[in-house]
């Protein structure tokens, strides 16, 4: 597979603030690539540079072989953008929204109408095509926003937090549609702060923290590498905390993170330790499989920062 997006030492500064601090990554054609990170980490800023709406301060960035500094219009013509905020035209109908959007790409109306039919079908909105935007649920509006991003048949679909603010059912429906698109060969680039979303959708992901990439892997490999085989979540009161920490500090083969009132004990695959054998006692002890959230805790040491 060839690289379709390539960033080298990419920097974005706003005055004295460095939002993106020299990141390098590449996205392969046909994969779903995720930017995972807390709010303010630099995910959206990176996306804005890739979609040519925010000028690059330093470094290099090419999209589909084109330099973002030189050919913004051509790049924008080749990608589909699904923004974080809903910016559909509220006074136009579902179908009109797509028609107007297709015109921005200078596509012939006949072609646009064909694609609108397909997109509405795919996102199960055909029966609502003449309705105003305000009458749609937020899940439908998000589906429509994704459908709108597909009007130019983009090689790359860029999604900025595609399911933020959706209820679980709507979220699962969006995920299913995105998997379907991925299986059709659309390269997808998404940002999220939902670990579950990244695990569900992404082939590979990078974790961005304070403007830097701190890890890059497949979701499974990340979990394996940073969170290990098992996690024990120990909910402790003030009194129990110190003796427990002393005991854990003395143990080999476990890693410990404290986040607020919970102590996370990570057991690595190669260490031959059985979590149950640790016999941790506290008001509440949960044994579970590690997930991406644990990778986060390990990497940032403090959990998700707002």
């Amino acid at each position, binding site marked *: 597979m060839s690289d379709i997006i390539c960033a080298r030492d990419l920097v974005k500064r706003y005055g004295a603030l460095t939002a993106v601090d020299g990141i390098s990554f590449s996205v392969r054609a046909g994969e779903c690539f995720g930017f995972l990170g807390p709010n303010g980490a630099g995910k959206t800023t990176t996306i804005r540079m890739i979609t040519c709406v925010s000028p*690059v301060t330093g470094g290099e960035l090419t999209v589909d072989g084109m330099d973002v500094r030189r050919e913004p219009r051509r790049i924008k013509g080749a990608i589909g953008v699904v923004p974080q905020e809903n*910016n*559909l035209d509220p*006074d136009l109908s579902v179908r009109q929204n797509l028609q107007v959007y297709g015109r*921005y790409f200078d596509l012939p109306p006949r072609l646009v109408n064909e694609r609108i039919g397909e997109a509405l079908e795919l996102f199960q909105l055909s029966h609502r095509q003449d309705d105003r935007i305000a009458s749609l649920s937020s899940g439908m509006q998000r589906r429509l926003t994704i459908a709108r991003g597909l009007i130019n048949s983009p090689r790359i679909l860029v999604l900025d937090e595609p399911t933020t603010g959706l209820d679980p059912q709507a979220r699962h429906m969006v995920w299913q549609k995105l998997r379907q698109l991925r299986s059709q060969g659309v390269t997808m680039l998404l940002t999220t702060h939902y670990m579950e979303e990244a695990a569900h959708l992404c082939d590979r992901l990078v974790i961005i923290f304070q403007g830097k990439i701190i890890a890059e892997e497949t979701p499974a490999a990340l979990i394996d590498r940073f969170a290990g085989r098992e996690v024990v979540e120990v909910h402790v009161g003030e009194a129990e905390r110190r003796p427990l920490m002393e005991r854990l500090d003395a143990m080999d083969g476990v890693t410990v993170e404290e986040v607020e009132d919970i102590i996370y004990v990570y057991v690595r695959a190669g260490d031959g330790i059985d979590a149950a054998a640790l016999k941790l006692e506290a008001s509440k002890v949960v044994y579970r499989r590690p997930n991406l959230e644990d990778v986060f805790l390990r990497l940032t040491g403090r959990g998700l920062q707002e």
Partner: protein
Amino acid sequence: MTSIALRRPTFRWPDVSLRALRVWQRNRDVYLQLWKSEIIWPVVEPVITLFALGVGLGGLVELESGQPYIEFIAPGLLAVWPMWSASAECGWGSFFRMENQRTYDAIVATPVSVEDVITGEILWGATRGLISATYILVVITAWGLVDSPLAILVLPVTVLTGVMFASISLSYTSVAWSISSLNYFFAVFITPMFWLSGVFFPIERLPEWGQTVAWWIPATHAAEVYRGLTSGNLHWSHLGDIAWMVVVVGIFYALALFSMRRRLVK
């Protein structure tokens, strides 16, 4: 692939293209959805003004030239009501699209540039002015207040004045911090232009300093030209009026492009 990192130039020429028309079309489509509620002010207000000032007040007014007062104000209304339409569109309308509906964000994610958006907005503002001027021209013609077939040239001139007022308005919108802060613009610039640009009385009635101020005001020149066209009394000085408006368009279109870019591209 190899590429050379280019230093971002501090100045770059505005990237305006024909795609600005796509933005114009978008606004037109929304207008065609909403025209029934949008149309009421521009339709009712000029007629009320003609009745109240032209017929009502006009009965008490005697102009030095002997011209009936209603005939005096009619061409002025051709200048100032479209000014209101174009300015309001690129004031409240543009601000709402930019900040509340985030329409600009949606558009610039496509091959349409920020400069195309600005240009399309100004062209649409001018179109609203043209719609208003067409309507008023029909009304005053039916009222018998137009003396010359040259009046039809009001429409092309309105394209110029529309672009002018739309550019001035969008320049202010580009630095407006909230939708209510636009009130300053309308209170301090548009309303004085409405009342003091020689529409309701000859500017010679103003004190000398007032006449000087009025000369700089773009609306004064628009009213002058419309007066000439509807009466058929064209004069070389009208070319000067047009030239001044072209200069104002140049200044404020450039300002709108520059200032909006600064606001939108971050």
